[in-house]
Protein backbone atom coordinates (compact mmCIF):
# COMPACT_ATOMS: atom_id res chain seq x y z
CA UNK A 1 0.00 0.00 0.00
CA UNK A 2 1.95 3.01 -1.25
CA UNK A 3 1.26 6.12 0.79
CA UNK A 4 2.11 9.53 -0.47
CA UNK A 5 3.51 12.10 1.97
CA UNK A 6 0.49 14.32 1.33
CA UNK A 7 -1.88 11.61 2.52
CA UNK A 8 -0.14 11.06 5.78
CA UNK A 9 -0.93 13.76 8.25
CA UNK A 10 -0.53 13.46 11.96
CA UNK A 11 -3.82 13.22 13.88
CA UNK A 12 -5.33 16.68 14.36
CA UNK A 13 -6.56 15.97 17.86
CA UNK A 14 -3.08 15.06 19.07
CA UNK A 15 -1.44 18.05 17.40
CA UNK A 16 -4.06 20.33 18.93
CA UNK A 17 -3.48 18.85 22.35
CA UNK A 18 0.29 19.29 22.13
CA UNK A 19 -0.18 22.93 21.06
CA UNK A 20 -2.67 23.65 23.83
CA UNK A 21 -0.45 22.14 26.50
CA UNK A 22 2.49 24.23 25.27
CA UNK A 23 0.63 27.53 25.35
CA UNK A 24 -0.79 29.40 28.33
CA UNK A 25 -4.48 29.23 29.10
CA UNK A 26 -6.62 31.79 27.30
CA UNK A 27 -4.63 31.58 24.08
CA UNK A 28 -6.54 30.33 21.04
CA UNK A 29 -5.22 28.87 17.86
CA UNK A 30 -6.87 29.51 14.52
CA UNK A 31 -7.74 26.59 12.29
CA UNK A 32 -5.27 27.78 9.66
CA UNK A 33 -2.47 28.03 12.21
CA UNK A 34 -3.24 24.52 13.50
CA UNK A 35 -3.23 23.11 9.99
CA UNK A 36 0.07 24.84 9.22
CA UNK A 37 1.66 23.48 12.40
CA UNK A 38 0.44 19.99 11.55
CA UNK A 39 1.94 20.30 8.07
CA UNK A 40 5.17 21.63 9.53
CA UNK A 41 5.30 18.63 11.84
CA UNK A 42 5.03 16.25 8.89
CA UNK A 43 7.79 18.12 7.07
CA UNK A 44 9.87 17.88 10.23
CA UNK A 45 9.45 14.10 10.31
CA UNK A 46 10.52 13.81 6.68
CA UNK A 47 13.49 16.13 7.09
CA UNK A 48 14.65 14.43 10.29
CA UNK A 49 14.28 11.02 8.67
CA UNK A 50 16.28 12.03 5.63
CA UNK A 51 18.99 13.53 7.78
CA UNK A 52 19.13 10.49 10.06
CA UNK A 53 19.23 8.20 7.05
CA UNK A 54 22.34 9.96 5.80
CA UNK A 55 24.11 9.02 9.00
CA UNK A 56 22.97 5.41 8.67
CA UNK A 57 24.15 5.24 5.07
CA UNK A 58 27.51 6.75 6.02
CA UNK A 59 27.88 3.93 8.55
CA UNK A 60 26.85 1.46 5.82
CA UNK A 61 23.78 0.38 7.78
CA UNK A 62 20.42 -0.31 6.23
CA UNK A 63 18.51 0.17 9.45
CA UNK A 64 17.96 3.62 10.92
CA UNK A 65 18.70 3.62 14.61
CA UNK A 66 18.22 5.93 17.56
CA UNK A 67 21.78 7.24 17.33
CA UNK A 68 21.20 8.33 13.74
CA UNK A 69 18.17 10.34 14.80
CA UNK A 70 20.05 12.03 17.64
CA UNK A 71 22.88 12.88 15.28
CA UNK A 72 20.30 14.31 12.87
CA UNK A 73 18.86 16.54 15.61
CA UNK A 74 22.27 18.02 16.18
CA UNK A 75 22.79 18.51 12.47
CA UNK A 76 19.43 20.26 12.19
CA UNK A 77 20.43 22.60 15.02
CA UNK A 78 17.90 21.19 17.45
CA UNK A 79 20.49 20.49 20.16
CA UNK A 80 17.98 21.64 22.76
CA UNK A 81 16.04 18.44 22.02
CA UNK A 82 18.94 16.13 22.75
CA UNK A 83 18.65 15.90 26.55
CA UNK A 84 14.88 15.36 26.73
CA UNK A 85 15.12 12.87 23.86
CA UNK A 86 17.85 10.86 25.55
CA UNK A 87 15.82 10.74 28.76
CA UNK A 88 12.67 9.67 26.95
CA UNK A 89 14.66 7.00 25.11
CA UNK A 90 15.88 5.51 28.42
CA UNK A 91 12.33 5.26 29.72
CA UNK A 92 11.16 3.81 26.42
CA UNK A 93 13.90 1.18 26.40
CA UNK A 94 13.01 0.09 29.92
CA UNK A 95 9.40 -0.12 28.88
CA UNK A 96 10.23 -2.26 25.88
CA UNK A 97 12.26 -4.58 28.08
CA UNK A 98 9.31 -4.82 30.47
CA UNK A 99 6.97 -5.62 27.60
CA UNK A 100 9.24 -8.42 26.42
CA UNK A 101 9.31 -9.86 29.92
CA UNK A 102 5.53 -9.58 30.19
CA UNK A 103 4.95 -11.37 26.91
CA UNK A 104 7.50 -14.06 27.82
CA UNK A 105 5.81 -14.50 31.18
CA UNK A 106 2.46 -14.79 29.42
CA UNK A 107 3.88 -17.50 27.21
CA UNK A 108 5.22 -19.39 30.21
CA UNK A 109 1.88 -19.08 31.96
CA UNK A 110 0.19 -20.46 28.87
CA UNK A 111 2.48 -23.47 28.82
CA UNK A 112 1.85 -24.07 32.50
CA UNK A 113 -1.87 -23.89 31.86
CA UNK A 114 -1.61 -26.44 29.07
CA UNK A 115 0.28 -28.78 31.36
CA UNK A 116 -2.32 -28.50 34.10
CA UNK A 117 -5.07 -29.27 31.60
CA UNK A 118 -3.28 -32.51 30.75
CA UNK A 119 -3.40 -33.48 34.41
CA UNK A 120 -7.18 -33.85 34.17
CA UNK A 121 -6.95 -37.38 32.75
CA UNK A 122 -4.35 -39.41 34.64
CA UNK A 123 -4.60 -42.53 32.53
CA UNK A 124 -3.90 -40.59 29.41
CA UNK A 125 -0.99 -39.00 31.15
CA UNK A 126 0.56 -42.31 32.10
CA UNK A 127 0.23 -43.52 28.57
CA UNK A 128 1.78 -40.36 27.33
CA UNK A 129 4.65 -40.73 29.74
CA UNK A 130 5.36 -44.21 28.49
CA UNK A 131 5.37 -42.96 24.95
CA UNK A 132 7.46 -40.00 25.90
CA UNK A 133 10.06 -42.16 27.58
CA UNK A 134 10.55 -43.98 24.39
CA UNK A 135 10.81 -40.91 22.25
CA UNK A 136 13.70 -39.13 23.94
CA UNK A 137 15.92 -42.12 23.43
CA UNK A 138 15.14 -42.09 19.76
CA UNK A 139 15.86 -38.41 19.66
CA UNK A 140 19.15 -38.87 21.44
CA UNK A 141 20.25 -41.41 18.92
CA UNK A 142 19.33 -39.09 16.15
CA UNK A 143 21.28 -36.29 17.78
CA UNK A 144 24.33 -38.41 18.21
CA UNK A 145 24.27 -39.30 14.59
CA UNK A 146 24.12 -35.67 13.62
CA UNK A 147 27.00 -34.79 15.89
CA UNK A 148 29.18 -37.46 14.36
CA UNK A 149 28.45 -36.20 10.90
Amino acid at each position, binding site marked *: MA*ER*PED*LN*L*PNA*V*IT*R*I*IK*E*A*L*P*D*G*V*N*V*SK*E*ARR*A*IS*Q*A*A*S*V*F*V*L*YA*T*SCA*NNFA*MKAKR*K*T*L*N*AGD*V*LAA*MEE*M*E*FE*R*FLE*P*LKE*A*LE*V*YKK*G*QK*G*KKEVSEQKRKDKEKKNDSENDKSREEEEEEEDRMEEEPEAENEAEEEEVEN
Partner: protein
Amino acid sequence: MAATVATPVTPTELDPDRCGSEEESRGAEAEEENTQQQIGPAAAVSHSRLSKLPLARIKALMKTDPDVSLASQESVFIIAKATELFVEMIAKDALVYAQQGKRKTLQRKDLDNAIEAIDEFAFLEGTLD
Protein backbone atom coordinates in the same frame (compact mmCIF):
# COMPACT_ATOMS: atom_id res chain seq x y z
CA MET B 1 -2.29 37.48 49.78
CA ALA B 2 -6.03 37.57 49.11
CA ALA B 3 -7.41 35.55 46.19
CA THR B 4 -7.48 37.72 43.08
CA VAL B 5 -9.85 35.56 41.06
CA ALA B 6 -13.06 37.06 42.46
CA THR B 7 -11.88 40.65 42.01
CA PRO B 8 -14.17 42.52 39.58
CA VAL B 9 -11.27 44.71 38.40
CA THR B 10 -10.46 44.43 34.68
CA PRO B 11 -7.81 41.73 34.47
CA THR B 12 -4.31 42.77 33.52
CA GLU B 13 -2.39 40.81 30.96
CA LEU B 14 -0.12 39.00 33.38
CA ASP B 15 -2.15 37.72 36.34
CA PRO B 16 -5.06 35.95 34.62
CA ASP B 17 -2.60 34.02 32.47
CA ARG B 18 -0.76 32.80 35.54
CA CYS B 19 -3.93 31.86 37.38
CA GLY B 20 -5.33 30.38 34.20
CA SER B 21 -2.31 28.20 33.56
CA GLU B 22 -2.39 26.88 37.12
CA GLU B 23 -6.02 25.94 36.74
CA GLU B 24 -5.37 24.37 33.39
CA SER B 25 -2.55 22.22 34.67
CA ARG B 26 -4.72 21.05 37.57
CA GLY B 27 -7.51 20.36 35.13
CA ALA B 28 -5.18 18.51 32.79
CA GLU B 29 -3.92 16.34 35.64
CA ALA B 30 -7.47 15.51 36.67
CA GLU B 31 -8.24 14.59 33.08
CA GLU B 32 -5.25 12.29 32.90
CA GLU B 33 -6.24 10.53 36.10
CA ASN B 34 -9.78 10.04 34.83
CA THR B 35 -8.70 8.56 31.51
CA GLN B 36 -6.31 6.21 33.27
CA GLN B 37 -9.10 4.98 35.53
CA GLN B 38 -11.44 4.51 32.62
CA ILE B 39 -9.00 2.60 30.44
CA GLY B 40 -7.74 0.31 33.15
CA PRO B 41 -4.42 -0.80 34.65
CA ALA B 42 -3.07 -2.33 31.46
CA ALA B 43 -3.08 0.97 29.61
CA ALA B 44 -1.58 2.79 32.58
CA VAL B 45 1.40 0.46 32.44
CA SER B 46 1.55 0.77 28.65
CA HIS B 47 4.45 2.85 27.45
CA SER B 48 2.57 4.39 24.56
CA ARG B 49 2.00 7.15 27.10
CA LEU B 50 5.58 8.23 26.37
CA SER B 51 4.69 9.35 22.89
CA LYS B 52 1.51 11.24 22.14
CA LEU B 53 1.90 10.75 18.40
CA PRO B 54 0.99 7.33 16.97
CA LEU B 55 4.20 5.47 16.12
CA ALA B 56 2.57 3.61 13.21
CA ARG B 57 1.71 6.86 11.48
CA ILE B 58 5.20 8.26 12.08
CA LYS B 59 6.73 5.10 10.66
CA ALA B 60 4.49 5.25 7.59
CA LEU B 61 5.60 8.84 7.01
CA MET B 62 9.26 7.86 7.35
CA LYS B 63 8.81 5.08 4.83
CA THR B 64 7.65 7.46 2.11
CA ASP B 65 11.32 8.34 1.78
CA PRO B 66 12.58 6.00 -0.97
CA ASP B 67 16.08 5.92 0.55
CA VAL B 68 14.81 4.54 3.85
CA SER B 69 14.66 0.76 4.00
CA LEU B 70 14.39 -0.12 7.67
CA ALA B 71 13.93 1.84 10.84
CA SER B 72 14.36 0.51 14.37
CA GLN B 73 11.47 0.89 16.81
CA GLU B 74 13.62 3.18 18.91
CA SER B 75 14.33 5.48 15.98
CA VAL B 76 10.62 5.76 15.20
CA PHE B 77 9.94 6.57 18.83
CA ILE B 78 12.63 9.26 18.99
CA ILE B 79 11.37 10.93 15.85
CA ALA B 80 7.85 10.90 17.29
CA LYS B 81 9.11 12.46 20.50
CA ALA B 82 11.22 15.02 18.63
CA THR B 83 8.20 15.99 16.54
CA GLU B 84 6.27 16.60 19.73
CA LEU B 85 9.03 18.88 21.00
CA PHE B 86 9.09 20.61 17.64
CA VAL B 87 5.35 21.34 17.75
CA GLU B 88 5.70 22.78 21.25
CA MET B 89 8.62 24.91 20.16
CA ILE B 90 7.05 26.35 17.03
CA ALA B 91 3.77 27.07 18.81
CA LYS B 92 5.57 28.99 21.56
CA ASP B 93 7.77 30.89 19.11
CA ALA B 94 4.76 31.85 16.98
CA LEU B 95 2.93 33.03 20.09
CA VAL B 96 5.53 35.76 20.57
CA TYR B 97 4.40 37.33 17.30
CA ALA B 98 0.72 37.09 18.23
CA GLN B 99 1.49 38.81 21.51
CA GLN B 100 3.42 41.52 19.68
CA GLY B 101 0.25 42.07 17.67
CA LYS B 102 -1.67 42.18 20.96
CA ARG B 103 -3.68 39.13 19.97
CA LYS B 104 -4.62 36.11 22.00
CA THR B 105 -5.27 34.00 18.96
CA LEU B 106 -2.40 32.39 17.13
CA GLN B 107 -2.76 32.96 13.41
CA ARG B 108 -1.09 31.61 10.31
CA LYS B 109 0.91 34.80 9.85
CA ASP B 110 2.47 34.37 13.28
CA LEU B 111 3.81 31.03 12.12
CA ASP B 112 5.14 32.52 8.91
CA ASN B 113 6.91 35.20 10.92
CA ALA B 114 8.46 32.63 13.23
CA ILE B 115 9.64 30.51 10.31
CA GLU B 116 11.26 33.50 8.64
CA ALA B 117 12.92 34.78 11.78
CA ILE B 118 14.19 31.61 13.41
CA ASP B 119 17.16 29.75 11.89
CA GLU B 120 16.09 26.30 13.04
CA PHE B 121 12.85 26.68 11.05
CA ALA B 122 14.57 27.57 7.79
CA PHE B 123 13.89 24.08 6.43
CA LEU B 124 10.16 24.90 6.51
CA GLU B 125 10.41 27.81 4.12
CA GLY B 126 8.34 27.17 1.02
CA THR B 127 6.99 23.87 2.30
CA LEU B 128 3.66 24.94 3.79
CA ASP B 129 0.53 25.57 1.70
